[in-house]
């Protein structure tokens, strides 16, 4: 079994990392190097933007790496703005574009990862709750729902892997729908 790291994961915090690793674990047999922001080490957004670009640069320099996966909360700044910020830096450094089909995948949960976690958990346990993509569920969980904790992150990622991105239920957050499609493309790309 090769020990080469296939994927570098760049996240704002442990919860994002646990969620992404849950998905990737279900995808099977991928070696991951975790570049999660250690708490206290500056702003999480800055960390992901900077490290994601650095890891894309590493991907172009060295042939062994297969992909970079980043998670960056939208946090009310508009997903397109978040993506453009990274795309601009990549362009300025002649590192090409950010495309999951090329193993460069940046997921932008709106409003933040908690939006996805609450939606996934509710579907996992079969008690569907209404989730929007503008409320900050990090501060306050949806009405009548228990607060997400650390134990929910990895299972949510694993559950996401079981879903079909072409047949997601009504009410699925739009960026999660798009994110799942990106993740499928990303896993296919890094396996090539």
């Amino acid at each position, binding site marked *: *079994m090769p*020990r080469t*790291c296939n994927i570098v994961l760049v996240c704002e915090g*442990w919860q994002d*990392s*646990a969620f992404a*690793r849950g998905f990737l674990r279900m995808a099977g*047999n991928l*070696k*991951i*190097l*975790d570049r999660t922001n*250690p*708490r*206290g*080490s*500056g*702003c999480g957004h*800055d*960390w992901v933007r*900077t490290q994601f670009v650095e890891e894309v640069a590493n991907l172009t320099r060295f042939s062994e790496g297969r992909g970079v996966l980043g998670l960056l909360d939208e946090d009310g700044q508009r997903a397109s703005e978040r993506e453009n910020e990274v795309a601009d830096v990549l362009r300025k450094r002649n590192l090409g574009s950010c495309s999951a089909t090329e193993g460069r995948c940046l997921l932008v949960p709106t409003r933040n990862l908690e939006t996805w976690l609450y939606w996934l958990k509710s579907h996992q346990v079969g008690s569907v709750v209404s989730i929007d993509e503008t409320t900050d569920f990090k501060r306050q969980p949806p009405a009548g729902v228990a607060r997400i904790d*650390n*134990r929910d992150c*990895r299972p949510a990622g694993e559950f996401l892997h079981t879903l079909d991105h072409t047949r997601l239920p009504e009410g699925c957050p739009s960026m999660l729908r798009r994110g799942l499609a990106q993740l499928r493309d990303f896993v296919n790309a890094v396996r090539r």
Partner: protein
Amino acid sequence: MFVRLYADNYRCFSAFTLELSSLSVLLGSNGSGKSTVMELFAKLRDFVTGREKSLDLFPPETLCRWDKRIEQTIEVGLRLEEHGEYIYRLRIRHEAKERALNKVVEETLTLNGKPLFEGNDKEIRLHNDLQSGNPVGMQADWHVSGISRVYERNDNQKLIAFRKSFENMLVLQLNPGLVSAVATAKQLVEIPRPDCSDFAGWLRHISAADVIVRQQAEQSLAQGSLPGFRAFQATHSGDTDILECFFESKPKPLKFRLDELSSGQIALIILEVAMAASAERGGVLLLDEPSNFLGLQEIQPLLVRLQDAALEGRFQVVLTVHHPIAVDLLAASYGLWLEREPTGPSRAYRVQMAESTTDENSAMRVSDLVARGWVSALGISRTVVAQETGSATAAQ
């Protein structure tokens, strides 16, 4: 979860307090007291579970060298979701520094502030779960934990839960060079030695008592943490068992005695079994330098799994680390810095990274800061450390 350790007049600990959480990472220079924390937890476990006596665990050499007092005090705080906050207190009086004689003069256990167990050098009083009514009296033994002598009953489940937390504690300071593949038939290893030299005996016990632990460890090893690994097998030879490991090979698997493997492979195997055992029992895993012997590619995956286990509440983790990968990954969030003048007492400080020192453009890695001894960026004031250490030493 163990939440607090206090030790007074024990090795380099003088009124030393350590606050613990689900994941605690002990950092500091050589000789700062990190391994002494591990050692003390192992000794408390062996005492409370009745594996060893105070005479063997706390010889006079364990008294602080600069302290003239002949009494040691150790306290442990434990929080169990189902019961609440326990405080265990052990006081040992040595006859004289030169003589290897001591006795337990106080052993108490409280739960949420009320007594569950009260012992001194004359008598023991055992309270029931309701912590009401007349306590049961027992004769004291100067060298044996009274808690270890309590038989489990329906009305003392709270005390038994406390003792089980110690039974489910693993303290490992791995030394693969000492690990033997041989387990003798009479050797019963419910809890391995810190160096895990008796690992073969421990795995045999696990295979008999907790086979799921062995299966989970084998699965994790086979799924990638030890490339090529397939399974364990114990081969009987006379009155001993030889522990062997099967590895993938064509046309048929190859087997190696455990002690034929490299130090790193042995360490990975032991760590997998320890993690599986801790997860199964919901215990606490204390690892002294788990990155020793491991290849660079193995270190981060191991640490991430330990972090996951702790944060997801599967088991508590206490680590001592020096390796830069470990320091950079864990210190900022879970670090406890231990500091000590060469012959003075240890002090522990929670790492609190200052935002200004970790600005993305000018940030240094935490391991760089530690290597330079620039610990002010970790939120630790050397002045305070020096003042506290100096005053503590002067007070003796």
